[in-house]
């Protein structure tokens, strides 16, 4: 019986190793051919250009970072406050309505987020900001912010609820108001859980492809809020089906995958270190 558990555990590890090795093997040739500096810091991506192709992914990297940061800036305050509301403030019947709604939000497929963004958000941005087309970094940020809400809310709510009651009672007994207690006592005590929620949100936002493929416009511009942009993920998703096997274009797409993989690895390592330090401290 023990053996079966072990085999199952090894299967997961084997897949992680397999994907890592595969990405490194298939991602390195293009980086070597283009040159690491030109690849990472080149500002022009024009892989289908027949006379003068260029493979600089700085626009994608910056777009992914800005997009994720923007989603966090919008999503975390809303998510955190919702979690406080659900865990502490909301009367039972209200929480019983909001909580399933949040869970439902987590269950909506990303393509549906993209579709709604395309039909509602993009035209709205176009008319509001008076730009020729609404597909933009801003649209992607809003869609991502909504998408990361459920994970932020549910993880921080769990963290807030796990704070021992005695802390709050002590604070209240000392004369602090309820709100002071939630923000000065409960939230700091739950900060590692809330940090985990934020990192989870970052992970989801940086890895999302389908929804932003539909609202971001997909031109490899250097990012600006109201222009059409391409993310690391959408660069791969959009071009993979057209890149001939063995071509530099396809290899470069693998290299983008490798960069994305390293990003997510860094986020995970950061999360682990952060959580560990908090536990010890």
């Amino acid at each position, binding site marked *: 019986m023990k053996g079966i558990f072990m085999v199952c555990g090894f299967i997961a590890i084997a897949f992680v190793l397999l994907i890592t090795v595969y990405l490194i093997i298939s991602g390195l040739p293009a980086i070597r051919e283009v040159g690491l500096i030109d690849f990472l810091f080149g500002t022009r991506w*024009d*892989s*289908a*250009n*027949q*006379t*003068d192709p260029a493979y600089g992914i700085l626009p994608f990297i910056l777009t992914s970072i800005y997009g994720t940061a923007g989603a966090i800036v919008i999503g975390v305050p809303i998510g955190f406050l919702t979690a406080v509301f659900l865990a502490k403030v909301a009367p039972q019947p209200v929480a019983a309505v909001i909580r399933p709604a949040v869970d439902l939000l987590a269950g909506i497929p990303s393509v549906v987020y993209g579709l709604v963004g*395309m*039909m509602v958000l*993009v*035209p709205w941005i*176009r008319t509001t900001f008076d*730009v*020729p*087309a*609404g*597909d933009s970094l801003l649209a992607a940020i809003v869609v991502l912010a909504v998408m990361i809400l459920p994970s932020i809310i549910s993880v921080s709510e769990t963290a807030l609820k796990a704070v021992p009651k005695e802390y709050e009672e002590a604070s209240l007994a000392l004369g602090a108001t309820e709100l002071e207690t939630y923000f000065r006592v409960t939230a700091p005590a739950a900060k590692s859980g809330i940090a985990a929620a934020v990192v989870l949100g970052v992970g989801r936002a940086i890895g999302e492809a389908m929804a932003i*493929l*539909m609202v971001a*416009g*997909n*031109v490899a511009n250097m990012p600006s809020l109201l222009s*059409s942009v391409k993310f690391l993920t959408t660069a791969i998703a*959009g*071009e993979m*089906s*057209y*890149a*001939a*096997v063995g071509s530099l274009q396809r290899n470069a797409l693998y290299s983008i995958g490798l960069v994305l993989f390293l990003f997510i690895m860094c986020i995970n390592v950061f999360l682990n270190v952060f959580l560990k330090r908090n536990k010890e401290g």
Partner: protein
Amino acid sequence: MKKFACLGLSMVMALGLMTGCGNSNGTTGSATEDESATGSTSSTGSTTSQSTTTTGGNLTGTVNTAGSTSMKDVVAVLTECFAEIEPGVTINYTGSGSGAGVEGALTGTCDIGLASRALNDEEKAGGAVEHVVALDGVAIVVNTANAVEDLTVDQIAQIFKGEITNWSELGGADGEIAVFGREAGSGTRGAFEEIVGVVDSCAYTNEYSSTGDVIGNVASNPNAIGYASLSAVGDTVKAVKVNGVTPSEETVKDGTYEIQRPFVMVTKEGTELSEAAQAFLDFALSADSAEFISAAGAVSPNA
């Protein structure tokens, strides 16, 4: 009370499941019957095929086609009709892009390559032979609210290169032009850029990954211009005249509509096709298939 409600609900659901089963059983049942029927006819057919080869319904085998995603509809229709003539032949289609289609035909990874553009000299030198099965017009589409009706190829090129940026320069209402296109590698984009002469020099506002996305976004944006297969253009957008010619089946076929491209089946010179593949190719090129090709939205040159 609650218990009863639960019970009732679950019974309804269970019933729903059962009816679902019944339906699917019915269809799969008939499908297997069909299959066994075709199987028997084709097997008897193949025994007779050793003596006579020309009558229909006596071939078996698999034909692998791969290439242009734009040709999906045409190939699907041809496959369907061919199945009635030669039920023993299975036609597979892989949408991998025109370049991959030509490459597949040359390297032998597929029987027939599909390309939604004319072959270039390099490919022809490599032994690729083109068979034009259909013509496809690339329509230039704008929003229905746009007053512009007629553009020259030159004007279109300037719009897509970003030299004309406002509709007022073309006689329309004041508004910055939003230039929509397909993603790099798309057959429609390749065809459009090559015909209009803007290869690698387009300044797109947005790039979309499907024809439907382009049409949908042009339909919702009064300042947009885009391109799409003529067959995909419906009432939601307006296809402008090019050099005064309305894009239609007739104008594509007689060549007066300038922005058009051929749908090509590619074979390799000197390599003999399997009997089934040859029959499929002959069928696609015959006058019999013409009406089916036009049903798929393209224009057959062989009618």
